């Protein structure tokens, strides 16, 4: 188990390193921060001075080596816009993002999983068809469209909730609902098909033949098996907690990581973009490791180092 974990961690570090490297070259080759931050008609001397100050005049590989060396020491550079450490700038935004993504995640689980289970248990019934219709609508409508519809209804028409910003206690509701609905829709479909697959298995019929009540067959035999594939998608959703709200944060002017990312990219504020990508990669990779460990816990067939004598 320890060796397995060590291997996974090594791969995780490698993944993060690749993400950082890739992002570094794409960002440095795709635009000039001096032009973006100082504007294109700034005097040539200021642009030159800016480049020298940020080391942008050095060869790319030198910049890259310097970046990696500093990053390994925990220094991800400073924002070119306000000069503060990039990571600090990013971490300041984390609570705001989590304030909408975590409740949205809970909403996805609380609606998506029960809806999927219910639909599977009542396959082809009216309730199943309605659930699946709503679900298809939920994940085919882009989140910005849903966001605008919600604003139109709850802010413009009814006037119940603020349409943007973060200054009121109710400001988070629409962003949370927007994020939650799409995720719940995906999760409902996924849970339904996982459940249907399991309900068709011989051990479900065998459990009924044993005399178990249907409720117990579902709870004790079907659900633990259906949880295995569902974990994949839930794990993926955990991975998007940090950066899964870019569009929604932009629509609702929510001061989280997503909006910081959008402005940092358009300004070519390299250190900030890099810091965000590093954080996103780290969350994704961590979520993946957690999913792998959960698999082993849920499915004895995947446990390593178990007994294998037949």
């Amino acid at each position: 188990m320890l060796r397995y974990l060590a291997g996974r961690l090594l791969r995780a570090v490698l993944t993060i390193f690749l993400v950082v490297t890739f992002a570094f070259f794409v960002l440095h080759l795709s635009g000039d921060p001096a032009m973006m931050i100082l504007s294109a008609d700034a005097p040539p001397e200021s642009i030159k001075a800016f480049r020298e100050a940020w080391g942008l005049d050095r060869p790319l590989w030198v910049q890259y080596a310097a970046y990696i060396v500093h990053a390994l020491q925990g220094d991800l550079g400073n924002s070119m816009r306000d000069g503060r450490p990039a990571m600090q700038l990013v971490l300041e935004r984390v609570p705001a993002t989590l304030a909408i993504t975590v409740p949205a995640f809970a909403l996805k689980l609380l609606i998506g999983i029960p809806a999927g289970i219910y639909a599977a248990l009542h396959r082809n019934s009216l309730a199943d068809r309605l659930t699946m219709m709503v679900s298809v609508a939920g994940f085919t409508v882009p989140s910005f469209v849903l966001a605008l519809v919600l604003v139109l209804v709850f802010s413009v028409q009814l006037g119940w909730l603020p349409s943007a910003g973060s200054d009121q206690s109710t400001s988070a509701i629409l962003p949370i609902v927007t994020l939650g609905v799409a995720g719940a829709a995906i999760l409902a479909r996924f849970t339904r098909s996982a459940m249907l697959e399991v309900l068709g298995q011989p051990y479900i019929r065998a459990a009924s033949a044993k005399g178990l009540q249907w409720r117990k067959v579902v709870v004790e035999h079907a659900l633990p098996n259906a949880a295995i594939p569902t974990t994949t998608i839930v794990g993926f959703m955990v991975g998007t907690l940090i950066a899964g709200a870019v569009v929604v944060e932009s629509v609702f002017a929510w001061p989280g990581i997503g909006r910081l990312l959008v402005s940092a990219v358009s300004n070519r504020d390299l250190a900030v973009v890099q810091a965000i990508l590093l954080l996103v990669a780290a969350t994704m990779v961590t979520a993946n490791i957690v999913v792998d460990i959960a698999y082993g816990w849920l499915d004895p067939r995947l446990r390593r180092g178990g007994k294998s004598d037949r």
Partner: protein
Amino acid sequence: MGESGCGKSVTWLAALGLLGSRARIGGEVRLEGRDLVGAPVAELERVRGRRIAMIFQDPSSSLNPVHRIGRQLGEALRLHRGLDGTAAEAEARRLLDRVHIADAQRRLGDYPHELSGGMNQRVMIAMALAGQPDLLVADEPTTALDATVQAQILELLGEIRRDSGMALVLISHDLGVVAENTDRVCVMYAGRVVEDAPIDTVFEAPAHPYTRGLLAALPELDGPRRVLTPIAGVVPDPWNLPTGCSFAPRCDRRIEACESAPPMPTEKAADHRVACIRA
């Protein structure tokens, strides 16, 4: 007995109400005078496992892959015998011993994928015994197993039947298995029982043309080599059955009347029923 798709398993699944809520079931299934068809679910649940237990074709996928053997056995023991904790564990161990699984204590902690197919079928049998049923329905219990294991499982079922007095329904397409392990046989064709008699009668004096056809298609161990006689034609699709006798299109003794209505089983001799107007 009957070929794949003739309705052997479905008949028993229907009897126990295991076909799901969308299946429509006609006729009647009598257990001590009570009709199980249309009986409330709670009543069926009391019958399943306790009065009539069932084991299935593919033992490895009939056990839940995420629960240990001990837990699955314990579940049946709690349900049917009200046993819990150490009493349940001791009884589970005894049941595994009973089906000749060595090192029962350790096996209780194993998962189904850690056991062979034959072992899993033994576990299924042990689980069926947990309810001390009056009747065990074994649905092709050896089809998924290799020949030596097959013999051991049939041997075990016979032994349990002799020792406990439990009745056994053996669903099979294998004439040899049926001949060696049963007292009485119902031959099924296209969803109906076409012949029902003691095993010796069926093998010595088969009356239905289908049964005769099956026996004629068997090679003999001794005696001269001969060309086997197959039954001409194929089984009709269940959604496209002939109006009369389902076997009529393949039958060499067919007359016009065969095509008018499905023949009802009639007593041809004492304890020998045949559904054929020509028998």
